[in-house]
C-alpha cells in the first residue's frame, strides 16, 4: 500500500451464499481523511464495512489496513445498537470497555483509567450524561458514547455503519461536526456509511459511491456527476444541485431502481 494510506481496498469482490454482493471495489483512505460511503439500502454498504473489519473474507482482491504498529487499529460503531433500558451500564462504563474490554479480569479502579475515560467523554461532549444508563439516552447521545468507545484507543481508522439513521436533523448535524473535528484532532481516518449524502457534503474529503455492487470513489465533485453516476448505474441519472443540496434522479426509471433513486441519492461509476 502507498505511503500515508491507512486503508487500501484493492479490486475486492465479495460473495455471500453464492450471490455476488460487491464487485471490484477499489479505493483507499489516507490518514485523517473523512470519507462517506454512500449508497441506497441494499447496495452493499454494510457488507463492505464488515469486509474491511475482517468479519467477511473477500472472494478476490484484498483489504489492507496499516495499523501503524498499533494493536487497536480499527474502531467500529455498529448500525443496530438498540439497548434495553434495563442494561446496567452507564455511558462511562461503555467507554471504559472501549479502553480495555478485551482484557481478562475485573477492572480495578485506577485514576489513570478514570482520567482517560473522562477525557474521552469530554471530547465527544458526553460528560453531562456520563453517569446515565446508555439505554435511557437519546439516539444522538448514544452515538456520541459509541464514538467515544470506538475512539478511546486512538485507532487510525474509524468505521461507522449508518450512524445518522434515525437521528433528528439537529443531532445529525451535531454528530457530523463531531466526527469531522475528531478525525482531524486524532488524525483518524473516518469511513461512514449513509444513504443520504447531503448532511455530509461539507465534511467529506472523499466519497465512495456504491450502486449495483460497484463503487466509484474520488472527491464529491468528481463522483457526484451525471456522467459518472449514469455509467455506474447503467442508465441515465441526473444530478441536480438545489439550495446546496444534491438530488440524484433517475430520468427513466428502470424497474425497481426508479423509486429508490428518486428518494435516496446514491450511486456509482469508475472515476479515473
Amino acid at each position, binding site marked *: 500500500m502507498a505511503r500515508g494510506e491507512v486503508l487500501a481496498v484493492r479490486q475486492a469482490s465479495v460473495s455471500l451464499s453464492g450471490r455476488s454482493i460487491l464487485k471490484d471495489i477499489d479505493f483507499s483512505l489516507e490518514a485523517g481523511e473523512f470519507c462517506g460511503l454512500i449508497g441506497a439500502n441494499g447496495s452493499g454498504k454494510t457488507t463492505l464495512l464488515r469486509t474491511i473489519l475482517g468479519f467477511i473474507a473477500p472472494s478476490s482482491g484484498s483489504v489492507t489496513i496499516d495499523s501503524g504498529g498499533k494493536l487497536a487499529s480499527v474502531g467500529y460503531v*455498529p448500525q443496530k445498537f438498540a439497548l434495553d433500558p*434495563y*442494561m446496567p451500564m452507564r455511558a462511562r462504563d461503555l467507554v471504559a470497555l472501549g479502553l480495555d474490554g478485551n482484557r481478562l479480569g475485573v477492572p480495578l479502579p485506577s485514576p489513570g483509567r478514570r482520567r482517560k475515560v473522562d477525557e474521552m467523554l469530554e471530547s465527544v461532549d458526553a460528560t453531562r450524561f456520563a453517569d446515565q444508563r446508555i439505554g435511557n439516552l437519546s439516539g444522538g447521545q448514544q452515538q456520541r458514547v459509541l464514538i467515544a468507545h470506538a475512539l478511546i484507543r486512538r485507532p487510525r481508522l474509524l468505521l461507522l455503519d449508518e450512524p445518522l439513521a434515525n437521528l433528528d436533523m439537529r443531532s445529525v448535524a451535531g454528530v457530523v461536526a463531531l466526527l469531522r473535528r475528531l478525525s482531524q484532532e486524532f488524525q483518524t481516518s473516518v469511513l461512514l456509511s449513509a444513504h443520504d449524502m447531503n448532511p455530509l457534503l461539507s465534511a467529506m474529503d472523499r466519497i465512495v459511491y456504491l450502486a449495483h455492487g460497484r463503487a466509484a470513489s474520488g472527491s464529491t465533485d468528481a463522483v457526484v456527476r451525471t456522467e459518472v453516476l449514469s455509467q455506474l448505474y447503467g442508465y441515465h441519472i441526473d444530478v441536480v444541485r438545489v439550495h446546496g443540496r444534491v438530488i440524484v434522479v433517475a430520468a427513466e426509471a428502470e424497474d425497481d431502481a426508479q423509486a429508490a433513486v428518486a428518494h435516496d441519492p446514491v450511486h456509482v461509476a469508475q472515476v479515473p
Partner: protein
Amino acid sequence: MDVQTLLSLLFEPGFFTSEPVRTAAVIGAAAAIVSGVVGVFTVIRGQSFAGHSLADVSSAGGSAAFLFGINPLLGFLGMGVLAAMSMELVRADRASERDLVTGVVTGAGLGVAALFLYLDMTTSSTTGAAVTVMFGSIFAIPASLVPLALLVGAGALLAIGVLYRPLLLSSLDPDLAAVRGVPVRLMGLLFLIVVALAVALSAITVGAILSTGLLIGPAAIALHLAKRPGLAILLAAVIGVAVTWGGILVSYDSYEWTGGRGWPVSFCIVMLIFVAYAVVAQTGPARERRQEHPLPSGEKPHVTSAG
C-alpha cells in the same frame, strides 16, 4: 415485647442448631450467589430460555444419579455441561433457529429424565426422587455434599471473574467485542458451561425446574435497581442469598402452623422472589428517566426544524 420474644417468634426453636438447616443455609447461599452473578449475564445476553433449558436437561443427569446411586450434584453437573456444549456447538446463528434447537434439546432432556425417574420408581421404589430432582429437598442434602458444592461455586465465580470484561463486551454487542479481538463464540461456549455450573448448584437446592427462578429472579430485580454492571452483580448475589435464607426460615417456621407438614423451601424461595420482583417492577429506569432528564428550557429533543 422484648427482643428475645420477637426473635423466638421469628425463628422457631432449634433453627440455629439444626444440622440440616445449617447445611441448607451454606449450600443455598452458594447456589444463590453463583446464580445471582451468572444470572445478570444470562439476562443481559437474553439467554433466560437457554438457562431454563440447561436446568431441564440437567434433570436427566440428576435422576440418573438417583438411579445409579451416585452424587446427585455430579449428575446435574455432568448432564448440564454436556447440554451446554452441544447447544453452543450446533451452529445456529439466527436467534429463531437457536430457540428451536434449545427447545428440541430441552424436550429430549426432559424425556430422558422421565425415563430415569420412572425406572427409579419401578426398580428401587424411591418415589421421592421425582420431587427431589425437579423441586428440590434442601433439608435432605447431606453435609458431605458441602465441600463439592463450594468447590463448584468457587469455580463458577472464578470463571466469571476472569472472563468479566470480554464477556460483558460480547454480551453487549458481539461485533464490538469481535473488533477488539474477543473470541465471541468461545466466550459464548465458556459462559454457557458456567451457567450449567450455576444451574447444577441451584438444582440440588431448589430443584431443576425451579432453578430458573433463582437464576433469573434476583438478577431481574437487580437490573431494576442498579445502573452499573458490577453493582448489579453484587446486588443480585445479595438478593439471592436474602431470598434463599428467607425461604429456608419461612419453610422451617411453617412446620409450626401447618401441623408439622411444612411448606417446601423451594416454594418459599420462589414466592419471595416473585413478591420482591413485583414490588421492584413498579419502579425502575422509567422513573429514573423522568428524574434525570429534566428538559432544559430551549433544548427539546427530536426537534425537526427546516434547514
